[in-house]
């Protein structure tokens, strides 16, 4: 458990960023691999940028309003 926590703190140390990036990657993987979602492939790039920005806004909002 200690090792996992150390790795988590070393790599990211922020649950909001981790969840945001993991969600973005999952959605991109689905768009890339599920046939029904193939028409959305063209939006993968903008989606990734928006997801990254949304993660940043979410984590900063949490810090600003929790204090």
């Amino acid at each position, binding site marked *: 458990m200690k090792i996992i926590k150390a790795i988590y703190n*070393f*790599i*990211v*140390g*922020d649950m909001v*960023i*981790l969840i945001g*990036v993991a969600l973005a*990657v999952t959605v*991109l*993987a689905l*768009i*890339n691999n599920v046939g029904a979602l193939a028409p959305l*492939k063209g939006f*993968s*790039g903008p989606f*990734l*940028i928006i997801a*990254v*920005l949304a*993660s*940043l*806004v979410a*984590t*900063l909002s949490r*810090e*600003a*309003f929790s*204090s």
Partner: protein
Amino acid sequence: MQWVVATAAFLASAVEFVEAFTIVLVVGVTVNWRSALLGALAAAATLALLVATLGVALVQWVPIDALRLVIGVLLLLFGLKWLKNAIMRYAGLKARHDEEAIYEENRAQLRARGAVDASASRFDLFGFLLSYKSVLLEGLEVAFIVITFGLSAATSTVSRSEGITSAALGALLAGLLVILVGAFVRIPLAKVPENTLKFVVGIMLTTFGTFWTGEAFSVVWPLSDVFLLILAAIYLVAAFSLIVWLKRVKKQQRAQVIENQSAPTTVQRQEVNP
């Protein structure tokens, strides 16, 4: 010597070398040069081993998309963490941790005690890994460029080895040029304030992370590698907007605290003088 192949490999490799060198440079300036250079050397050794064992088959055996995804996601996580902390420092939500002053203080104390100052060259795992994976990924891309350009140049009159040698020479020249230019940029960069550097590193890591993660999912970025600059500009604008917004939020919170503190005083005064 195939000049067309050498020039094409030079130009394509220069872009990759610039990307790798930028990250080594910022790791060197923000973490320390020992970790940055050790990471770059370890990546170069891994690359040499891969090229020596796999040779031309490297193009078929190394899953470049999987590698891009892993490195891209890691860079995104590192980058967002750095960017978040830098934005919070600029907005006043976090104390500006002036490491340079602390470092100078530690050095002065060590000197006073007559001890050897090892903090400047202390090995840092974060810096090492950041430098290692960036150089490995970009180095692999250079290897791919050399092999594909070299092989595509092979015709009935030009042998495969001649094509690859020409492409390799072009790439080598690009690498040397980027290192030379970087060596000159290193000194002025060291004078930039710590939080500014961390902010820029955060923007850059997030930019590269987004770019490589996108490429791993077959995203075709407009203008190819030039889109890195556009991405950096998007994140820069967003980061500045967030700083302005957070400063305003902090101001409002402070005003509310002052208002809450002054309210009971008014009530108390009214009780004394009805």
